[in-house]
């Protein structure tokens, strides 16, 4: 297992970064090329001003009709994504990786805060799972794919938390953390998680079409 861990944090890590980056670039490039071939109107209507107006508006909690109408989901979505990004960049364990591998001493979250944020992400995953099971509108449209990506995103956090708390086999948990996080990276360009790379574009287009053609806000 230790050997597998060394492999997972070595060659496999670089491979997943490469697949994530190359995959994302390829996906975005092919979408841009497809839009150029089929939907020139997208290019005609795209506007920087309206794009960012829409993106910033939707990045504001409770700033849009949709966020206001779904308060629990708003709190859940913002907490989930914010904590996820903070932990990805500033988890103390990740900072140690930067320090050890590249000699970069970056700022990191205090341990207690990192632990709290991890629990928040886990709680958000539980909330999303609850909605998929119990909210009829969500349950009706939930597919295996949705469960798979939710599980995939949940794994790195629960394993990180258990490894940190040294509950269960720490090596197994750490290995699971690394492997599942790599799986998430690889999955981003090719699954529902691709909203991470596409939503800035879909949001920007909607903002542009509503701003430029419909003369009306899209929130």
């Amino acid at each position, binding site marked *: 297992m230790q050997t597998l861990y060394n492999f997972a944090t070595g060659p496999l890590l670089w491979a997943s970064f490469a697949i994530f980056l190359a995959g994302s670039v390829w996906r975005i490039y092919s979408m841009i090329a497809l839009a150029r071939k089929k*939907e020139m109107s997208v290019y005609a209507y795209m506007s920087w001003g309206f794009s960012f107006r829409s993106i910033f508006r939707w990045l504001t909690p409770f700033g849009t009709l949709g966020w206001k109408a779904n308060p629990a989901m708003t709190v859940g*979505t913002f907490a989930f994504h914010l904590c996820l990004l903070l932990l990805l960049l500033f988890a103390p364990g990740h900072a140690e990786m930067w320090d050890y591998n590249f000699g970069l001493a970056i700022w990191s979250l205090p341990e207690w805060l990192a632990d709290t944020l991890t629990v928040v992400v886990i709680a958000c995953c539980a909330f999303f799972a609850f909605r998929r099971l119990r909210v009829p509108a969500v349950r009706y449209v939930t597919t295996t794919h949705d469960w798979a990506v939710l599980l995939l995103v949940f794994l790195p956090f629960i394993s990180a938390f258990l490894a940190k708390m040294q509950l269960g086999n720490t090596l197994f948990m750490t290995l699971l953390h690394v492997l599942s996080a790599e799986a998430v990276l690889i999955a981003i360009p090719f699954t*529902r998680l691709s909203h991470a790379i596409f939503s800035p574009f879909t949001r920007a287009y909607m903002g542009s079409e509503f701003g430029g053609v419909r003369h009306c806000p899209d929130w």
Partner: protein
Amino acid sequence: MGIADRRIEDGNLMQAVAKLTPEKIKAAYELVTKGEAGARLSTYYQSCMRCGMCAQACHFSISHPDDPSYTPVGKMDQTMWKLIRQKGEVTPDEVYGMAQIAYTECNMCKRCVHYCPVGIDTGFITSLVRRFCYRLGVVPTYILDTAHSHSAVMNQMWVKQDEWIDSLIWQEDEARGEFPNLRVPLEKEGAEILYSVIAPEPKFRTQLIYQAAAIMHEAGLDWTMPALPGWDNSDMCMFVGDSEMMGRLKRCHYEMAQRLKVKRIVMGECGHAFRSVYDTGNRWLGFKDWPVPVVHSVEFFWELLTTGKIKIPKKFDKPVTIHDPCNITRGYGLMDKLREVVHMLCDKVVEMSPNREHTICCCAGGGIINCGPPFKSVRVAGNKAKADQLAATGVEYLVAPCHNCHGGLEDIIGHYKLGMHTKFLGDLIYQLMEKTRAE
């Protein structure tokens, strides 16, 4: 729960579905999703998180709170998402259900856009589902008939050439009883304004032409109406999914204005026709906006009232509420001008909530009312949301500057016994304006 449990019999849907084969279905699927649709459909499909936040957006799902198959994402899941998931391998029965959802349970009003964090355009996807159904001929009888009329005579209502001119002259004749010097100028080259209407106006709402002529006459405008095809600005082909015909209709409309060398087209109080000139038809023809400026009645009336060409000596004294038609508010941002016009005409305005660009749809637009009697109960039941909203205002008069909205709102007013009356802006202006040139 789902469309299979609420199938409604429709002559053409049944006939067309009977002729389907797996190969035909697959071919239409390939044509629409791979041949025509592009990056937008693909990214929307992949980044729709199935979060269900749009459930609260749609008047259908608000009106059916316990049935998730009416939510925007639920409707996507039963139509386009299912097609993509199964790579176009669906049964003729399933195509029937898809057509029923796309033509009769989504008005493409785009209210759900305000609820989707990812920015998914559900109305656009519905239009692709309709395109798929249209390619298979699976279109509800009544709306298909209007599209056929467009193809045959370039107007929606089988109005023949002589009938059109006759209707205009008839209205001119009628109006001259009130305004002795009034004319409905036909084919006047170089006029400032070309006035275009939808075919239901000459067919059964002829008084609207009378009123428009009276307003033009009172304001002393240099205007004209076309005698030749192109006079109908409506576009049911846009709604059935016949994009080719939609393009022909819009080209015909624009070219008519260019032939007459008018400065601009003024359009009657119609929502969908306006959508077809600034959003869909122009795109199909490759115009970013329009080759001839097109002005909606709301903007036009706003001009007449603010410049004093039309004077309102005494405002309407009963309280009114305003319905924002999706195509000109969420679609074109005319909510402020609409309010200004209504306030210039009426003493007391009671606003609905939500309103403006968040307006709840009339449930008639998007071609739904044009699907005819078999589906009337669907749109009436599907718009209890609007009925509740109307009832909450407690007023008797409702201003709605759109023909389809009128039809849909009158139906829910009747069904839910709201005892309200709908008004066009033209009705109010004609009724209230100072008639200096009348006898």
